[in-house]
Protein backbone atom coordinates (compact mmCIF):
# COMPACT_ATOMS: atom_id res chain seq x y z
CA UNK A 1 0.00 0.00 0.00
CA UNK A 2 1.21 3.50 -0.79
CA UNK A 3 -0.18 7.03 -0.95
CA UNK A 4 -2.00 7.60 -4.25
CA UNK A 5 -0.07 9.48 -6.92
CA UNK A 6 -1.63 12.89 -6.38
CA UNK A 7 -1.94 12.68 -2.60
CA UNK A 8 0.45 14.55 -0.36
CA UNK A 9 0.84 14.11 3.41
CA UNK A 10 2.14 16.75 5.79
CA UNK A 11 2.59 16.47 9.52
CA UNK A 12 0.98 19.15 11.66
CA UNK A 13 0.91 19.90 15.39
CA UNK A 14 -2.52 18.29 15.65
CA UNK A 15 -1.56 15.26 13.58
CA UNK A 16 -1.44 15.70 9.84
CA UNK A 17 -3.20 16.54 6.61
CA UNK A 18 -3.73 14.55 3.47
CA UNK A 19 -4.26 16.67 0.38
CA UNK A 20 -5.79 15.02 -2.65
CA UNK A 21 -4.57 17.54 -5.18
CA UNK A 22 -6.70 16.42 -8.14
CA UNK A 23 -9.99 16.99 -6.38
CA UNK A 24 -8.36 19.62 -4.11
CA UNK A 25 -9.86 17.95 -1.06
CA UNK A 26 -8.14 18.13 2.30
CA UNK A 27 -8.47 15.43 4.94
CA UNK A 28 -7.23 16.06 8.45
CA UNK A 29 -5.84 13.40 10.74
CA UNK A 30 -5.36 13.23 14.47
CA UNK A 31 -2.04 12.03 15.89
CA UNK A 32 -2.91 8.34 15.57
CA UNK A 33 -4.19 8.73 12.04
CA UNK A 34 -1.05 10.64 11.11
CA UNK A 35 1.08 7.86 12.58
CA UNK A 36 -0.71 5.35 10.36
CA UNK A 37 -0.18 7.45 7.26
CA UNK A 38 3.47 7.98 8.19
CA UNK A 39 3.88 4.21 8.21
CA UNK A 40 2.21 3.91 4.81
CA UNK A 41 4.50 6.61 3.43
CA UNK A 42 7.49 4.76 4.87
CA UNK A 43 6.47 1.60 3.05
CA UNK A 44 5.33 -0.44 6.03
CA UNK A 45 3.15 -3.34 4.94
CA UNK A 46 -0.57 -3.11 5.63
CA UNK A 47 -0.48 -6.08 8.02
CA UNK A 48 2.41 -4.67 10.01
CA UNK A 49 1.13 -1.17 10.75
CA UNK A 50 -0.89 -1.96 13.88
CA UNK A 51 2.03 -3.91 15.32
CA UNK A 52 4.38 -0.99 14.73
CA UNK A 53 1.99 1.40 16.47
CA UNK A 54 1.38 -0.90 19.41
CA UNK A 55 4.88 -0.22 20.63
CA UNK A 56 4.19 3.50 20.70
CA UNK A 57 0.57 3.83 21.83
CA UNK A 58 -1.30 2.40 24.79
CA UNK A 59 -4.09 0.11 23.70
CA UNK A 60 -5.87 -0.87 26.95
CA UNK A 61 -9.16 -1.56 25.19
CA UNK A 62 -7.51 -3.65 22.48
CA UNK A 63 -9.07 -1.61 19.69
CA UNK A 64 -5.95 -0.59 17.80
CA UNK A 65 -6.13 -3.35 15.17
CA UNK A 66 -9.76 -2.58 14.45
CA UNK A 67 -9.21 1.18 14.25
CA UNK A 68 -6.20 0.86 12.00
CA UNK A 69 -8.11 -1.49 9.71
CA UNK A 70 -11.06 0.91 9.62
CA UNK A 71 -8.80 3.85 8.78
CA UNK A 72 -7.03 1.94 6.02
CA UNK A 73 -10.39 0.91 4.55
CA UNK A 74 -11.55 4.52 4.67
CA UNK A 75 -8.37 5.82 3.04
CA UNK A 76 -8.72 3.20 0.33
CA UNK A 77 -12.39 3.99 -0.31
CA UNK A 78 -11.55 7.69 -0.71
CA UNK A 79 -8.79 6.90 -3.20
CA UNK A 80 -6.11 8.29 -0.91
CA UNK A 81 -4.05 5.11 -0.93
CA UNK A 82 -3.48 2.48 -3.56
CA UNK A 83 -1.98 -0.96 -3.65
CA UNK A 84 1.60 -1.21 -4.82
CA UNK A 85 1.69 -3.03 -8.14
CA UNK A 86 3.57 -6.32 -7.98
CA UNK A 87 6.41 -6.74 -10.34
Amino acid at each position, binding site marked *: MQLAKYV*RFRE*EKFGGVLFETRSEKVFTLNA*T*GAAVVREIAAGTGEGEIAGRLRGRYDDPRGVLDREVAALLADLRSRGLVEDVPHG
Partner: protein
Amino acid sequence: MDEAPPAVAAAAARGAEDLAAPLYVAWQITNECNLACLHCIEESGPGKAFADELTPGEFRAVLDQMLEHEVPYLSFSGGEPMVHPHFFEMAEHFCAGRGNLKVETNGHYLTPANCERLERLGVKAVQVSIDGASKDTFNRMRVLGRFDAAVDGTRNLRAAGVPIEINFSPTHFNVHEIGAAVDLAYELGAYSFYSGRTMYTGNAVKTWRKIVPTEEQYAEFFATLRAKAEEYRGRMRVYFHEMGLLEELRYRLVHPAALVIVLPNGLVKLINALPFVCGDLRRQSLTEIWANFQRAWRDPRVAGFVDELAVDPRKTAGLHEWIHL
Protein backbone atom coordinates in the same frame (compact mmCIF):
# COMPACT_ATOMS: atom_id res chain seq x y z
CA MET B 1 -18.02 6.79 3.06
CA ASP B 2 -20.27 8.75 5.36
CA GLU B 3 -18.85 7.70 8.68
CA ALA B 4 -15.16 8.26 8.94
CA PRO B 5 -13.16 6.48 11.64
CA PRO B 6 -12.08 8.69 14.53
CA ALA B 7 -8.63 9.36 13.14
CA VAL B 8 -10.09 11.18 10.17
CA ALA B 9 -13.16 12.67 11.73
CA ALA B 10 -11.57 14.12 14.84
CA ALA B 11 -9.74 16.92 13.11
CA ALA B 12 -12.08 17.44 10.22
CA ALA B 13 -13.20 20.87 11.34
CA ARG B 14 -9.76 22.42 11.58
CA GLY B 15 -9.11 25.62 9.69
CA ALA B 16 -6.16 27.32 8.07
CA GLU B 17 -5.06 28.81 11.40
CA ASP B 18 -4.09 25.35 12.67
CA LEU B 19 -1.75 24.64 9.79
CA ALA B 20 1.99 25.26 9.84
CA ALA B 21 2.08 26.52 6.25
CA PRO B 22 -0.26 27.01 3.30
CA LEU B 23 -1.56 23.92 1.56
CA TYR B 24 -1.85 25.65 -1.78
CA VAL B 25 0.12 28.48 -3.34
CA ALA B 26 -1.26 30.09 -6.50
CA TRP B 27 1.68 31.83 -8.09
CA GLN B 28 1.27 34.33 -10.91
CA ILE B 29 4.83 33.95 -12.15
CA THR B 30 4.64 36.77 -14.70
CA ASN B 31 2.14 39.36 -15.85
CA GLU B 32 3.38 39.03 -19.42
CA CYS B 33 1.00 37.34 -21.83
CA ASN B 34 0.81 36.65 -25.53
CA LEU B 35 -2.94 37.38 -25.45
CA ALA B 36 -4.98 40.40 -24.30
CA CYS B 37 -8.24 38.80 -23.19
CA LEU B 38 -11.31 40.98 -22.71
CA HIS B 39 -12.03 39.57 -19.25
CA CYS B 40 -8.47 39.15 -17.88
CA ILE B 41 -8.59 39.83 -14.15
CA GLU B 42 -4.85 40.56 -14.05
CA GLU B 43 -4.75 43.08 -16.92
CA SER B 44 -2.09 40.90 -18.49
CA GLY B 45 -1.04 41.20 -22.11
CA PRO B 46 1.91 41.72 -24.40
CA GLY B 47 4.41 44.05 -22.73
CA LYS B 48 2.56 43.88 -19.40
CA ALA B 49 5.26 42.14 -17.32
CA PHE B 50 5.85 43.96 -14.02
CA ALA B 51 9.12 45.90 -13.98
CA ASP B 52 10.03 44.26 -10.66
CA GLU B 53 9.21 40.59 -11.25
CA LEU B 54 11.26 38.10 -9.23
CA THR B 55 14.66 37.11 -10.62
CA PRO B 56 15.42 33.43 -11.24
CA GLY B 57 17.54 33.35 -8.09
CA GLU B 58 14.75 34.85 -5.98
CA PHE B 59 12.30 32.47 -7.54
CA ARG B 60 14.41 29.43 -6.65
CA ALA B 61 14.79 30.67 -3.08
CA VAL B 62 11.01 30.91 -2.71
CA LEU B 63 10.51 27.47 -4.24
CA ASP B 64 13.05 26.06 -1.78
CA GLN B 65 11.05 27.51 1.10
CA MET B 66 7.89 25.92 -0.24
CA LEU B 67 9.60 22.55 -0.52
CA GLU B 68 11.10 22.93 2.94
CA HIS B 69 7.65 23.65 4.39
CA GLU B 70 6.14 20.83 2.36
CA VAL B 71 3.63 23.02 0.56
CA PRO B 72 1.90 20.16 -1.24
CA TYR B 73 0.37 22.00 -4.12
CA LEU B 74 1.51 24.90 -6.27
CA SER B 75 0.05 26.39 -9.40
CA PHE B 76 1.85 28.54 -11.96
CA SER B 77 -0.35 31.05 -13.70
CA GLY B 78 0.10 34.56 -15.07
CA GLY B 79 -0.16 36.28 -17.41
CA GLU B 80 0.81 33.29 -19.45
CA PRO B 81 3.26 31.26 -17.36
CA MET B 82 4.79 29.48 -20.34
CA VAL B 83 6.13 32.75 -21.80
CA HIS B 84 8.33 33.14 -18.71
CA PRO B 85 11.89 32.48 -19.92
CA HIS B 86 12.61 30.28 -16.88
CA PHE B 87 9.27 28.46 -16.78
CA PHE B 88 10.62 24.95 -17.25
CA GLU B 89 13.59 25.52 -14.97
CA MET B 90 11.24 26.57 -12.15
CA ALA B 91 8.79 23.76 -12.83
CA GLU B 92 11.61 21.23 -12.79
CA HIS B 93 12.96 22.62 -9.53
CA PHE B 94 9.61 22.22 -7.75
CA CYS B 95 8.69 18.85 -9.25
CA ALA B 96 12.14 17.41 -8.44
CA GLY B 97 11.36 18.16 -4.80
CA ARG B 98 8.17 16.06 -4.95
CA GLY B 99 5.89 19.08 -5.20
CA ASN B 100 2.59 18.76 -7.03
CA LEU B 101 2.43 21.40 -9.75
CA LYS B 102 -0.48 22.61 -11.82
CA VAL B 103 0.03 24.91 -14.80
CA GLU B 104 -2.74 27.31 -15.84
CA THR B 105 -2.23 28.29 -19.46
CA ASN B 106 -3.98 29.61 -22.53
CA GLY B 107 -2.67 26.57 -24.38
CA HIS B 108 -0.81 28.37 -27.14
CA TYR B 109 2.62 27.00 -26.14
CA LEU B 110 1.57 23.39 -25.72
CA THR B 111 3.69 21.98 -28.50
CA PRO B 112 4.22 18.20 -28.57
CA ALA B 113 7.75 18.70 -27.23
CA ASN B 114 6.58 20.93 -24.35
CA CYS B 115 3.79 18.51 -23.46
CA GLU B 116 6.20 15.60 -23.36
CA ARG B 117 8.46 17.65 -21.09
CA LEU B 118 5.54 18.41 -18.77
CA GLU B 119 4.65 14.73 -18.69
CA ARG B 120 8.21 13.79 -17.74
CA LEU B 121 8.06 16.33 -14.92
CA GLY B 122 4.98 14.60 -13.55
CA VAL B 123 2.88 17.76 -13.31
CA LYS B 124 -0.39 17.21 -11.53
CA ALA B 125 -2.38 18.85 -14.29
CA VAL B 126 -2.36 21.47 -16.98
CA GLN B 127 -5.43 23.68 -16.97
CA VAL B 128 -6.24 25.17 -20.37
CA SER B 129 -8.61 28.11 -20.77
CA ILE B 130 -11.10 27.35 -23.52
CA ASP B 131 -13.90 29.87 -23.28
CA GLY B 132 -16.13 28.67 -26.03
CA ALA B 133 -16.77 25.84 -28.36
CA SER B 134 -16.08 27.76 -31.56
CA LYS B 135 -13.53 30.08 -33.14
CA ASP B 136 -16.08 32.88 -33.18
CA THR B 137 -16.50 33.13 -29.44
CA PHE B 138 -13.01 32.08 -28.37
CA ASN B 139 -11.17 34.42 -30.73
CA ARG B 140 -13.48 37.32 -29.85
CA MET B 141 -12.80 36.92 -26.15
CA ARG B 142 -9.14 35.97 -26.27
CA VAL B 143 -7.77 38.87 -28.30
CA LEU B 144 -4.72 37.68 -30.31
CA GLY B 145 -5.69 34.12 -29.41
CA ARG B 146 -6.58 31.24 -31.69
CA PHE B 147 -9.15 28.61 -30.80
CA ASP B 148 -7.37 26.02 -32.94
CA ALA B 149 -4.09 26.61 -31.10
CA ALA B 150 -5.70 26.03 -27.69
CA VAL B 151 -7.52 22.91 -28.89
CA ASP B 152 -4.46 21.50 -30.66
CA GLY B 153 -2.35 22.20 -27.58
CA THR B 154 -4.83 20.33 -25.43
CA ARG B 155 -4.75 17.40 -27.84
CA ASN B 156 -0.95 17.43 -27.50
CA LEU B 157 -1.34 17.20 -23.73
CA ARG B 158 -3.57 14.19 -24.12
CA ALA B 159 -1.18 12.51 -26.53
CA ALA B 160 1.65 13.02 -24.03
CA GLY B 161 -0.43 11.66 -21.15
CA VAL B 162 -0.65 14.89 -19.12
CA PRO B 163 -3.79 15.23 -16.93
CA ILE B 164 -6.03 17.96 -18.35
CA GLU B 165 -8.39 20.50 -16.78
CA ILE B 166 -10.42 23.00 -18.77
CA ASN B 167 -11.48 26.43 -17.54
CA PHE B 168 -14.33 28.47 -19.03
CA SER B 169 -15.08 32.13 -18.27
CA PRO B 170 -18.62 33.17 -19.19
CA THR B 171 -19.51 36.29 -21.16
CA HIS B 172 -22.79 37.32 -22.71
CA PHE B 173 -21.54 36.18 -26.12
CA ASN B 174 -20.24 32.70 -25.17
CA VAL B 175 -22.63 31.46 -22.44
CA HIS B 176 -24.85 29.76 -24.99
CA GLU B 177 -21.93 27.46 -25.88
CA ILE B 178 -21.41 26.15 -22.36
CA GLY B 179 -22.96 22.75 -23.06
CA ALA B 180 -20.87 22.28 -26.18
CA ALA B 181 -17.77 23.52 -24.32
CA VAL B 182 -18.24 20.86 -21.62
CA ASP B 183 -18.67 18.22 -24.33
CA LEU B 184 -15.52 19.47 -26.04
CA ALA B 185 -13.58 19.29 -22.78
CA TYR B 186 -14.58 15.66 -22.38
CA GLU B 187 -13.70 14.90 -25.98
CA LEU B 188 -10.27 16.48 -25.40
CA GLY B 189 -9.69 14.13 -22.48
CA ALA B 190 -10.16 16.50 -19.54
CA TYR B 191 -10.79 15.03 -16.12
CA SER B 192 -12.11 18.33 -14.71
CA PHE B 193 -14.02 21.32 -16.05
CA TYR B 194 -14.21 24.58 -14.11
CA SER B 195 -16.34 27.67 -14.41
CA GLY B 196 -17.92 30.43 -12.36
CA ARG B 197 -18.92 34.05 -12.64
CA THR B 198 -16.71 36.52 -14.47
CA MET B 199 -15.29 39.13 -12.12
CA TYR B 200 -15.44 42.91 -12.49
CA THR B 201 -11.76 43.69 -12.29
CA GLY B 202 -8.69 44.00 -14.52
CA ASN B 203 -9.48 44.25 -18.23
CA ALA B 204 -13.13 43.44 -17.50
CA VAL B 205 -13.58 46.90 -15.98
CA LYS B 206 -13.02 48.44 -19.41
CA THR B 207 -14.97 45.81 -21.34
CA TRP B 208 -17.75 45.08 -18.84
CA ARG B 209 -20.65 46.32 -20.95
CA LYS B 210 -19.49 44.15 -23.85
CA ILE B 211 -18.97 40.98 -21.82
CA VAL B 212 -21.17 40.77 -18.73
CA PRO B 213 -23.84 38.07 -19.00
CA THR B 214 -27.36 38.97 -17.90
CA GLU B 215 -28.80 37.27 -14.82
CA GLU B 216 -31.13 35.35 -17.15
CA GLN B 217 -28.12 34.11 -19.09
CA TYR B 218 -26.38 33.13 -15.87
CA ALA B 219 -29.46 31.20 -14.75
CA GLU B 220 -29.49 29.19 -17.96
CA PHE B 221 -25.70 28.81 -17.85
CA PHE B 222 -25.73 27.29 -14.36
CA ALA B 223 -28.73 25.11 -15.19
CA THR B 224 -26.78 23.67 -18.12
CA LEU B 225 -23.74 23.13 -15.92
CA ARG B 226 -25.85 21.29 -13.34
CA ALA B 227 -27.19 19.04 -16.08
CA LYS B 228 -23.72 18.46 -17.50
CA ALA B 229 -22.33 17.65 -14.05
CA GLU B 230 -24.90 14.86 -13.86
CA GLU B 231 -24.32 13.73 -17.42
CA TYR B 232 -20.57 13.36 -16.90
CA ARG B 233 -20.68 12.05 -13.33
CA GLY B 234 -17.98 9.42 -12.89
CA ARG B 235 -16.28 10.40 -16.17
CA MET B 236 -15.32 14.07 -15.80
CA ARG B 237 -15.84 16.40 -12.85
CA VAL B 238 -17.79 19.54 -13.73
CA TYR B 239 -17.10 22.17 -11.05
CA PHE B 240 -18.72 25.57 -10.99
CA HIS B 241 -19.08 28.35 -8.45
CA GLU B 242 -22.58 29.66 -8.63
CA MET B 243 -22.04 31.72 -5.52
CA GLY B 244 -21.53 35.43 -6.08
CA LEU B 245 -18.31 37.10 -5.05
CA LEU B 246 -19.83 38.78 -1.99
CA GLU B 247 -21.16 35.51 -0.59
CA GLU B 248 -17.81 33.84 -1.15
CA LEU B 249 -15.87 36.64 0.56
CA ARG B 250 -18.21 36.59 3.56
CA TYR B 251 -17.62 32.86 3.85
CA ARG B 252 -13.85 33.36 3.57
CA LEU B 253 -13.85 35.94 6.35
CA VAL B 254 -14.96 33.16 8.68
CA HIS B 255 -13.21 30.28 6.92
CA PRO B 256 -10.03 31.49 5.21
CA ALA B 257 -8.69 28.93 2.75
CA ALA B 258 -5.17 27.60 3.32
CA LEU B 259 -4.25 29.30 0.07
CA VAL B 260 -2.07 32.30 -0.68
CA ILE B 261 -1.73 34.21 -3.93
CA VAL B 262 1.80 35.18 -4.97
CA LEU B 263 2.16 38.03 -7.43
CA PRO B 264 4.96 38.20 -10.03
CA ASN B 265 6.95 40.59 -7.81
CA GLY B 266 6.76 38.35 -4.74
CA LEU B 267 3.98 40.21 -2.93
CA VAL B 268 1.48 37.88 -1.31
CA LYS B 269 -2.26 38.55 -1.43
CA LEU B 270 -4.96 37.17 0.84
CA ILE B 271 -7.17 36.20 -2.05
CA ASN B 272 -7.51 37.34 -5.64
CA ALA B 273 -10.77 39.16 -5.06
CA LEU B 274 -9.38 41.47 -2.35
CA PRO B 275 -6.69 44.16 -2.66
CA PHE B 276 -4.94 43.21 0.59
CA VAL B 277 -1.29 42.19 0.68
CA CYS B 278 0.01 40.28 3.72
CA GLY B 279 3.68 39.85 2.84
CA ASP B 280 6.60 40.17 0.49
CA LEU B 281 8.58 37.04 -0.33
CA ARG B 282 11.59 39.16 -1.27
CA ARG B 283 11.90 40.38 2.29
CA GLN B 284 10.03 37.94 4.50
CA SER B 285 10.05 34.21 5.06
CA LEU B 286 7.08 32.05 4.20
CA THR B 287 6.63 31.34 7.92
CA GLU B 288 6.39 35.04 8.73
CA ILE B 289 4.00 35.66 5.87
CA TRP B 290 1.80 32.73 6.89
CA ALA B 291 1.51 34.21 10.38
CA ASN B 292 0.64 37.59 8.83
CA PHE B 293 -1.94 35.87 6.65
CA GLN B 294 -3.77 34.56 9.74
CA ARG B 295 -3.79 38.00 11.35
CA ALA B 296 -4.71 39.81 8.14
CA TRP B 297 -7.98 37.93 7.69
CA ARG B 298 -9.03 39.30 11.10
CA ASP B 299 -8.02 42.86 10.25
CA PRO B 300 -11.13 45.08 10.40
CA ARG B 301 -10.16 46.71 7.10
CA VAL B 302 -10.75 43.39 5.34
CA ALA B 303 -14.24 42.93 6.75
CA GLY B 304 -14.86 46.63 6.08
CA PHE B 305 -13.94 46.23 2.42
CA VAL B 306 -16.34 43.29 2.08
CA ASP B 307 -19.10 45.34 3.73
CA GLU B 308 -18.46 48.18 1.29
CA LEU B 309 -18.59 45.72 -1.57
CA ALA B 310 -22.15 44.89 -0.58
CA VAL B 311 -23.05 48.53 -1.17
CA ASP B 312 -20.87 49.09 -4.21
CA PRO B 313 -20.00 45.88 -6.15
CA ARG B 314 -17.80 47.93 -8.47
CA LYS B 315 -15.18 48.33 -5.73
CA THR B 316 -13.48 45.28 -7.24
CA ALA B 317 -12.29 47.62 -10.00
CA GLY B 318 -9.54 48.70 -7.60
CA LEU B 319 -8.15 45.27 -6.68
CA HIS B 320 -4.78 46.14 -8.20
CA GLU B 321 -4.32 49.11 -5.91
CA TRP B 322 -2.77 46.97 -3.20
CA ILE B 323 -3.32 47.69 0.46
CA HIS B 324 -0.52 46.43 2.69
CA LEU B 325 -1.67 45.02 6.02
